[in-house]
């Protein structure tokens, strides 16, 4: 078990390098946008990964509310945190891509706007976790996670409908994709998914150790106070 992590780490690093090579060298150059379009191979996998992580957060939160297992609470926390990291990358690479292609840094198009709202919801989740009284944090956070997940279809529908009434250029282009590009995209997605898994695993272990330490502190201070009253 202890060896699994470093081995997976090395494999993931190799996979990421290979995916990078594919994205920069092997993938065909796009006709209208040129080389800048290669940002797509980092932008889209990050978005998909963030989405999967937020879904895991939703499931873990429900599991926690039903079963009250601390492990579920940790999974919820970890998936939200790492999800926000990947979502941040989507929101940073998006404008970097938009600027040379459309001439503007931000476009209130469907995908970027929805991603921004998603980011806001999960950041507020993390803020709640940080600021709430520790005893009640897991339950409150789980409740908020459910609200956030319920909100997602509304976010997508409302922005979609708004955009059909006030059309904007669509980021990343619509339409069909060259199969060679799809292949490179999927390789990058696989690489980033493995990477995300390892990051989550590390964060999970860190959180477990942290909670054990906090419990040890609590026990220690209890032990001291009972000793002093004797």
């Amino acid at each position: 078990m202890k060896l699994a992590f470093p081995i997976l780490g090395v494999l993931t690093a190799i996979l990421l390098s290979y995916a990078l090579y594919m994205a920069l060298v092997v993938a065909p150059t796009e006709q209208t946008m040129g080389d800048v379009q290669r940002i797509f191979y980092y932008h889209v996998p990050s978005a998909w990964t963030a989405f999967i992580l937020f879904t895991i957060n939703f499931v873990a939160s429900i599991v926690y509310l039903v079963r009250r297992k601390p492990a579920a609470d940790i999974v919820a926390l970890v998936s939200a945190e790492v999800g926000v990291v990947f979502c941040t990358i989507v929101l940073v690479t998006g404008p970097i891509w938009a600027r040379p292609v459309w001439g503007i840094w931000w476009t209130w198009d469907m995908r970027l706007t929805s991603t921004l709202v998603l980011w806001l919801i999960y950041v507020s989740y993390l803020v709640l976790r940080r600021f709430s009284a520790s005893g009640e944090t897991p339950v409150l956070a789980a409740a908020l996670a459910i609200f956030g997940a319920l909100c997602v279809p509304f976010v997508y529908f409302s922005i979609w409908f708004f955009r059909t009434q006030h059309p904007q250029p669509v980021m990343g282009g619509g339409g069909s994709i060259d199969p060679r590009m799809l292949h490179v995209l999927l390789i990058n997605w696989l690489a980033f998914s493995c990477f995300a898994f390892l990051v989550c695993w590390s964060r999970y272990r860190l959180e477990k150790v942290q909670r054990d330490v906090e419990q040890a502190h609590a026990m220690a201070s209890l032990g001291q106070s009972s000793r002093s009253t004797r």
Partner: protein
Amino acid sequence: MNRYLLAAYAATWIIHIAYLSTLVSRYTKLKREIDELKKS
């Protein structure tokens, strides 16, 4: 290589590395606390 492309890829890895460094620093702090707890 197109500078926007470079910026995007660099930004991605900078963000990932920044997050991972916070994990590492929290872990080293915890390790110290564990050692202290073990001593007392």
